[in-house]
């Protein structure tokens, strides 16, 4: 899958225009605040129906406007054209693929697989457990629709159980326990499998880019680690109900699972340097790309926003070498990152981004 053009209409600071992106690499060059990240955000929004940085669609409307829309044409792996449109109109968002309305966002996940490397990832290893949980949820959802669906159902039931706890609806809680257990045990099983397979990729990649002997891997610490069956979970939830009532929330479950980066001595956050932790954070995205390819045999679209600056020359080289096997990649660079021209291969488009306007880079 490859984007061939993108059209912007009242989207953030990007001027209303249609931009050709029909190349394997697209580079966006410009100082901060000119619209590079907005461009990346537009592509992501077209892929997944929501932004990776805006909390709601309204934030993406250009100042002083009420609506906005984005659309793109793509060429899929079989060479057929596809049109995706995202509209925020009259306070409501809607999406369509080839003019057919997309009713459920999960249709999108499997349409254009896209992975974003964002500067926000940099504190990923050291950040909240939720960041890594969300990462694995996303990674697994990309190839496993049943996992995505289980997760969605689990979260819905969890909210109901918490509401039932707050309202002291004790007659309903055993019913929610049963539902939670059924989906939770499946999620736990899938996560065990996924981490096992992820660990065939991630440690090797880190070793190659870090150029140190340190070996790191992911350790999965499930909240229901002592449960193997639905019944085990139901019993555990019944046993811990008083605690949950006291805390007014469900304190155990796959929503509390942890994914810890470890080296031979334990948590990497304790022994790794700041630089090593940041590098490991970036490697997560790289491993996600590889993992996706391994699971599906398909190549994703990469959105690489403002992360290469983080790396020194040697590591950047190793990083980029590994960044193979994508169907298309978008990079953002500051003008002073002169090395972008060396990265460009034959099938590359380079744009200067200035105050929301894109023009073909000269020289």
């Amino acid at each position, binding site marked *: 899958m490859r984007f061939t053009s993108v059209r912007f209409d009242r989207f953030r600071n990007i001027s209303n225009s249609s931009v050709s992106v029909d190349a394997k690499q697209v580079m966006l060059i410009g100082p901060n605040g000119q619209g590079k990240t907005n461009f990346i955000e537009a592509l992501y929004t077209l892929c997944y129906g929501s932004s990776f940085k805006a909390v709601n669609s309204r934030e993406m409307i250009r100042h002083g406007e009420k609506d906005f829309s984005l659309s793109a044409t793509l060429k899929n792996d079989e060479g057929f054209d596809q049109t995706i449109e995202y509209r925020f109109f009259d306070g409501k968002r809607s999406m369509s693929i080839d003019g057919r309305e997309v009713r459920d966002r999960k249709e999108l996940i499997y349409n254009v697989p896209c992975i974003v490397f964002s500067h926000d990832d940099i504190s990923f290893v050291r950040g909240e457990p939720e960041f890594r949980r969300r990462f694995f949820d996303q990674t697994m959802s990309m190839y496993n629709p*049943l996992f995505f669906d289980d997760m969605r159902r689990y979260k819905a039931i969890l909210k*109901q159980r918490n509401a039932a706890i707050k309202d002291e609806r004790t007659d309903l809680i055993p019913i929610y326990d049963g539902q939670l257990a*059924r989906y939770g045990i499946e999620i736990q099983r899938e996560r065990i499998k996924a981490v096992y397979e992820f660990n065939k990729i991630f440690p090797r990649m880190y070793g190659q880019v870090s150029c140190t002997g340190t070996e790191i891997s992911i350790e999965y610490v499930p909240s229901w680690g002592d449960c193997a069956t639905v019944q085990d979970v139901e019993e555990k939830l019944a046993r811990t109900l008083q605690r949950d009532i006291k805390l007014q929330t469900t304190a155990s479950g796959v929503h509390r699972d942890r994914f810890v980066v470890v080296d031979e001595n334990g948590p990497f956050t304790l022994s790794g340097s700041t630089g090593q932790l940041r590098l490991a954070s970036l490697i997560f995205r790289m491993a996600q790309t590889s993992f996706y390819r391994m699971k599906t045999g398909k190549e994703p679209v990469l959105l690489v926003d403002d992360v290469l600056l983080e790396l020194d020359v040697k590591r950047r080289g190793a990083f980029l070498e590994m960044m193979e096997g994508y169907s298309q990649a978008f990079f953002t660079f500051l003008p002073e990152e002169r090395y972008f021209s060396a990265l460009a291969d034959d099938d590359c488009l380079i744009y200067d981004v200035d105050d929301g306007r894109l023009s073909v880079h000269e020289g």
Partner: protein
Amino acid sequence: MTALEQLARNLSRLPGIGPKSASRIAYHLIKTDNAYNQALSQDIAHIQEVIFPCSICGSYTETDPCPYCTDPSRDRSTLCVVEQPQDVVTISASGAYDGLFHVLGGAINPLDGVGPEHLTFDKLLKRIDEGSFKELIIATNPTEEGDTTALYIRHLLKDRPDLTITRLASGLPIGGDLEYADRLTLARSLRGRIKL
């Protein structure tokens, strides 16, 4: 607030109508044939007098009890439990069901403040006690709330082993023919999730 704004505001409270659509409809109503406006407002004013829930099963009817409850040709040993009155029409239109109905009035949803006390479970149990039902078909929606509601009914009837309780088998309500949907439907049915 002008009369126009007032009308638009009221229209925007209708399901699926945003502020812009509401204002478009309001402008349309200004210039449209007045006889149509009169007829429409009459229809809206009287709908709740003419159509009301059946006192036995809860489906919408113009006579009480409703035609389903009074039709002697319907199978009185089977009871189909649904969330909303509209569901009665849908299932009935399928032509594959000729038993009786029971409308719960929704699904258990503590998040939205809907507990069992807001739904017609008491009435349901009374009907089952007093009737001669052999089978209960739970046709709540294939959502988490619909599942919860189905499981709750099974819990309420745990002392009635004589009663066969089934849950409507359902494919996933997905539009389109995307590959993943088929995979998901298949994966889920293979796992046999919908046993009660």
